[in-house]
């Protein structure tokens, strides 16, 4: 098959969990990577080495362990900055996950500052967002009197851009959208939308939670008009640990935002009567940061970099294409979202007539095939397509074509199990 990673078996050997067997001695077919990715040995080992040999708090400690820990943590930041081509390494803020990164932005925009959102202002998002890119903006709108508006979707699961001139106007303060949909797989034209949003002076926030694992990102190489002002992603989906996420923001924007959480190393000086704050990135990193997680994330993105994001993207496209073909052979199965692999990411949600997604997932699980069933934290997108839930398979750099075969076979079995035609 064209496009697969040439050293696929070597890569699979890097992921210890892939050797696991499930109940009944079945091999694991892990097709839930859009939910969370598996971890290569090097990430686990890096974390263990830190905890066993270098553990100390950072920044504050002057002793040798403290210096080692600080250096490892800040090197994690350098690696993340390189991974997304950040114009400046200090623009990389560590959060606990993508959700916190998005909330950080929505939350600070409520308070006095250059970008403050108020009554009469508008916030624009889309109907295909993850809840983590909807609820923070609903809370912001509710709490400031601003209005939340959104792009609708076309029948084939793309953003409906026809009303863009009505939607993005002088009243628009923020446009926040996902780069790649975690439900429909759609890759959105973020450059075009950013360009438009910037003409009206709006901030552009991009949720890259599903993009960062799959697409090469080079922020510094983007024309400024098309570059997001802020971009969020999450560690556990890029073969890193849980407990860490990333907010990248242009320095000027981050400098202009008021503080989010207070305490720890985010200060310049504290008196009981009032405090002043540190510069970025520390300003937004209150308390002891996720140290071992940042170190693990550094190892993770370095690992992806060694494999090569272009190669991973090609692999994902090949697997996705193969999966779309296979799914098309299952009677009564309908894929939600675009049908050509080139314009989508590696998550494919589908319906199967006559069987509820939970029941599909359950039967698949009994065959060792792990997929996700439910609304995938994208209820509005499901509602748009008139479904309450769907089944989602999602691949990653370790996915092998025969795992797609196992999925298709298990779906056939599901149909037989539920006695469908």
């Amino acid at each position, binding site marked *: 098959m064209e496009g697969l990673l040439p050293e696929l078996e070597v890569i699979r050997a890097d992921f210890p969990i892939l050797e696991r067997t499930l109940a009944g001695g*079945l091999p694991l077919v892990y097709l839930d990577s859009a939910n969370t990715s598996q971890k290569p040995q090097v990430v686990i080992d890096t974390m263990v080495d830190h905890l066993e040999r270098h553990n100390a708090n950072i920044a504050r400690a002057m002793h040798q362990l403290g210096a080692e820990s600080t250096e490892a943590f800040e090197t994690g930041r350098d690696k993340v900055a390189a991974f997304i081509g950040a114009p400046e390494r200090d623009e990389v803020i560590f959060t606990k996950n993508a959700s916190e990164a998005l909330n950080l932005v929505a939350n600070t925009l409520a308070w006095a500052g250059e970008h403050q959102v108020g009554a009469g202002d508008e916030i624009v998002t889309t109907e295909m967002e993850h809840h983590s890119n909807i609820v923070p903006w609903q809370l912001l709108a509710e709490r400031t009197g601003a209005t939340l508006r959104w792009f609708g979707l076309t029948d084939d699961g793309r953003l409906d851009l026809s009303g863009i001139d009505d939607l993005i106007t002088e009243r628009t303060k923020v446009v926040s959208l996902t780069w790649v949909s975690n439900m429909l797989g759609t890759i959105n034209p973020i450059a075009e939308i950013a360009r438009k949003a910037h003409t009206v002076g709006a901030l552009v926030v991009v949720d890259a939670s599903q993009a960062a694992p799959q697409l090469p990102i080079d922020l510094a190489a983007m024309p400024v008009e098309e570059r997001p002002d802020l971009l969020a992603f999450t560690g556990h989906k890029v073969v890193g640990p849980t407990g860490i996420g990333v907010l990248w923001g242009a320095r000027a924007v981050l400098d202009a935002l008021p503080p989010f959480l207070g305490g720890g190393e985010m200060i310049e000086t504290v008196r009981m009567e009032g405090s002043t704050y540190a510069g970025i990135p520390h300003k937004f990193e209150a308390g002891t940061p996720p140290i071992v997680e940042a170190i693990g994330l550094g190892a993770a993105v370095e690992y992806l970099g060694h494999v090569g994001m272009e190669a991973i993207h090609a692999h994902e496209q090949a697997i996705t294409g193969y999966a779309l073909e296979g799914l098309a052979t299952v009677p009564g199965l309908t894929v939600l979202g675009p049908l050509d692999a080139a314009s989508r990411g590696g998550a494919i949600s589908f319906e199967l007539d006559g069987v509820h997604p939970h*029941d599909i997932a359950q*039967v698949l699980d009994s*065959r060792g095939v792990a997929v996700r069933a*439910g609304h995938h934290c994208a209820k509005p997108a499901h509602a748009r397509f008139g479904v*309450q*839930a769907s089944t989602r398979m999602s691949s990653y750099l370790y996915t092998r074509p025969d795992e797609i075969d196992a999925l298709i076979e298990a779906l056939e079995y599901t149909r037989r*199990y539920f006695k469908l035609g």
Partner: protein
Amino acid sequence: MTAHGTDQNGLDALYQEIILDHYKHPHNAGLRDDFEAEVHHVNPTCGDEITLRVHLGEGEGDSRVVADVSYDSLGCSISQASASVLTDLLIGKSIAEAMTIHQEFQTLMQGRGQVDPDEEVLEDGIAFAGVAKFPARVKCALLSWMAWKDATAQALEEKS
């Protein structure tokens, strides 16, 4: 007792014929006009939903009869079949009796497969014994039961 020959990792214990029958042909489905309380419950993790109405007979407190339970639900086979079985078991019983059955069903579901169901009390409900071994599905089976309990409490409050 299994529906499909060899048991695939307990799958047949989960999907007993009785459950699949109730799923395909749910009893007492639909929303009916006579009711004192209506609730809408959601399972946030999976999105299963139920709108459920309770209609109680005359009388005082626990001795009132569960005159009707009507519902409209969206969800998997387990959650749908469970609602269907619930109506079979509870309609016509006194609230006191119904609460006992409710307790029995809940104990079965939360027993991690260690509880032996009493067929006298639970009738078709014993088919859910296998669900208790699948922690992720217990919530599916309990959705309608939680909704019924909530609606009944509201209906009783209404009165007082």
